[in-house]
């Protein structure tokens, strides 16, 4: 390899890193603003116009802070962990195309490469949790390992299904195949699974279990401060952006769209997905670890296999495109029905409670009419569990 090639790659990577950093800064600002709107607040307003300089102020503050390493920590693990996390988040972007020609290094096996590197980050979280000599950190690290590995499976399955549809692992080809209609229409169930598993993969609400503020107080990051913590933060947002971009590329037709330049289209679609992620964060509580695992293994994994099967059947028999849509929608409707059943269960229970309450009030009135004062006494209920 010529020196000039190496230099070009280095320059390209530097440019990519700069762009990603700017994107991350923008995302943190956007998240604060969007959450603020959702919660009836303003978000940052003081730093710059509309608080635009808030991310810069944050970054400056974090970098200038003292970087504390606990005495009991495993220094090597503690140091390497954030580096691993951020590098694995960063290298994914090497092969994510922003348009047909705008990509650092396109790979024929791009999708495979992305999936492979997205797993590496787990190692960093585990190391951070273990190396920081903190029980909350260790718990968080173990939670991260369990969670990310479980959700990796449905994610990969859906990605395989999409690769089958496009007959390629090259993201550029996948987008090209969607020039007439996005795969969203063919495989809506796939989009839902990919989005949910993606949320879990980047540890965002409702799957922010491994750094749950109210339980494990930040999990693997609990002992990190200053620049080290900022690096984790950077990685988290790069990952969020990557999941959004992949959703746009795999399901929303990537950069294809009329009038606007391709890059703008991709950016718009990605931002739309990012906004949904923020919206979810502003709305949902967090799952418990056993519910999270149960959801992955009992719901998402079988569903992702279903996605693979229907895609394979569709491909093998060469049925018309709407047949796959129908099959996918059928799966979605089935799941939707189960969710609806579970969601209406408490409402039914409340009706039961209120009926009981009316009966109680009646008996009280009857007792009052009979002249005996109503005595507060424990009413026997069916004991819990």
């Amino acid at each position: 390899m010529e020196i000039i090639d190496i230099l070009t790659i280095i320059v390209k990577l530097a440019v990519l890193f700069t762009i990603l950093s700017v994107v991350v800064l923008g995302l943190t600002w956007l998240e604060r603003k969007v959450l603020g709107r959702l919660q009836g607040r303003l978000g940052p307003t003081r730093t710059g116009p509309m608080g635009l300089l808030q991310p810069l102020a944050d970054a400056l503050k974090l970098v200038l802070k003292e970087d504390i390493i606990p005495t009991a920590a495993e220094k090597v693990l503690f140091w390497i962990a954030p580096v691993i996390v951020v590098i694995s988040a960063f290298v994914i972007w090497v092969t994510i195309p922003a348009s047909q020609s705008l990509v650092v290094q396109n790979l024929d096996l791009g999708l495979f490469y992305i999936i492979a590197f997205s797993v590496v980050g787990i190692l960093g979280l585990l190391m951070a949790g273990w190396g920081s000599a903190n029980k909350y950190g260790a718990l968080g690290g173990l939670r991260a390992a369990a969670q990310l590995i479980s959700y990796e499976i449905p994610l990969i399955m859906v990605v395989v299904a999409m690769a089958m549809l496009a007959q390629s692992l090259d993201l550029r080809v996948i987008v090209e195949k969607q020039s007439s209609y996005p795969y969203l229409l063919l495989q809506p169930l796939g989009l839902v699974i990919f989005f949910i598993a993606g949320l879990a993969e980047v540890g965002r609400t409702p799957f922010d279990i491994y750094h749950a503020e109210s339980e494990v107080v930040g999990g693997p990051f609990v002992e990190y401060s200053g620049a080290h913590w900022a690096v984790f933060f950077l990685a988290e947002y790069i990952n969020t952006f990557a999941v959004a971009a992949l959703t746009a590329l795999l399901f929303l037709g990537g950069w294809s769209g009329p009038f606007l330049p391709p890059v703008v289209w991709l950016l718009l679609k990605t931002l739309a997905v990012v906004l949904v992620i923020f919206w979810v964060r502003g709305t949902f509580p967090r799952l418990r670890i056993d519910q999270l695992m149960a959801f992955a293994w009992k719901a998402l994994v079988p569903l992702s296999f279903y996605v693979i099967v229907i895609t394979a059947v569709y491909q093998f028999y060469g049925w018309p495109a709407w047949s796959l849509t129908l099959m996918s929608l059928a799966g979605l409707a089935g799941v939707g029905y189960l969710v609806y059943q579970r969601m209406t269960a408490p409402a039914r229970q409340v009706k039961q409670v209120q009926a009981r309450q009316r009966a109680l009030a009646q008996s009280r009135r009857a007792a009052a009419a009979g002249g005996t004062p109503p005595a507060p006494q424990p009413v026997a209920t069916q004991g819990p569990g």
Partner: protein
Amino acid sequence: MCPNMVETHANLAAGGQPVEMLLNMGPQHPSTHGVFRLVLWIDGEKIVRAEPHIGYLHRGSEKLCEGEQYHQVITLFDRLDYVANFNNEWAYCRAVEKLMGLAVPERAEYARVILGELNRIASHLLYVGTMGLDAGAMTPSMFCFRGRERVQALFEAVSGARMMHNYFRIGGLKEELPENFRQLMSGLLPLLKKDVEESDKILTFNEIFLARLKGVGAIGAPEAVDFGFTGPCLRACGVEYDCRRAQPYSVYDRFEFEVPVGLDGDCWDRHWVRVQEMYQSLRIIEQALAQMPEGPVTSPLGRRLIRPPKGEVYVRAENPRGELGVYLVSDGTDKPYRVKVRPPSFCNLSAIQRLLQNSWIADSVVILGSLDIVLGEVDR
């Protein structure tokens, strides 16, 4: 690596039985609602044993009361349950009034009911917000704090302070309500109702919230009674017991309201009961506003030093957290001989060990949140 974890690992490697890890939760943990400390023995994510430690906020309030004159004690009661100040002042004032056989002006009673119920709503709003935070939802807390802030703005207009009001007096109130009180209330109530509804809508029936709370930390009615549960925690078990109904004090027998009860006594039922109570409180406030007569509100005693007759008295009041009991002994001097407080939070918290057994770490936060303790009251 934690020494404890290394030991565990070595023990397992040597073929030993699994050893529990000791996890210290609090007093600086964000979800322990103040300075409460839990020591958990955990096996993976499961809690094997839990040991609560209290006393970090002990200020000796009961003893301090013995050194203060009767009027001065009110400020100490403000600081017991510091998110339901009016209710605390009220209970103490009622105790002294009962001891002295003092009648309170009608208008003052209505004002007390209105302020007390508003404080109940504020307290429950704070609970709903922190419950959301404990369960991982951040938005409800913003909605709830907005509503609570509105209530506190009214409190400030009435008493001059957002939290430590010191507004109730033995035999009445400190001073007349502000001239535009009704106007303030008619401005506040619709907004408050909206806030309550909003916080209810975003959280109560959320699928994930239900999954987290339903069936978690359940306790049966007989056991709850044994533990001395009162308030929403007891009513969640299906026991319809509310001081305002069972032993009506003040003017509570003139209002129409329901006492919401739960079914299973789990965290979600406790949450649901509190949310429903907010609606009932709004109902009571509306009725009280409609019925409130004109007249004096200040105490006939004025600023005179009081010396209640010798004797003892016990009053109970329905506070947002449960039944607050005040036991007062007077020896005929200007200072109480003994003040004993029966704090609802303390009794409710006593079940924490039983509730946490064999639950998940994530549940411990939710269970503690659903008991809705205030450490100022637990430790006194």
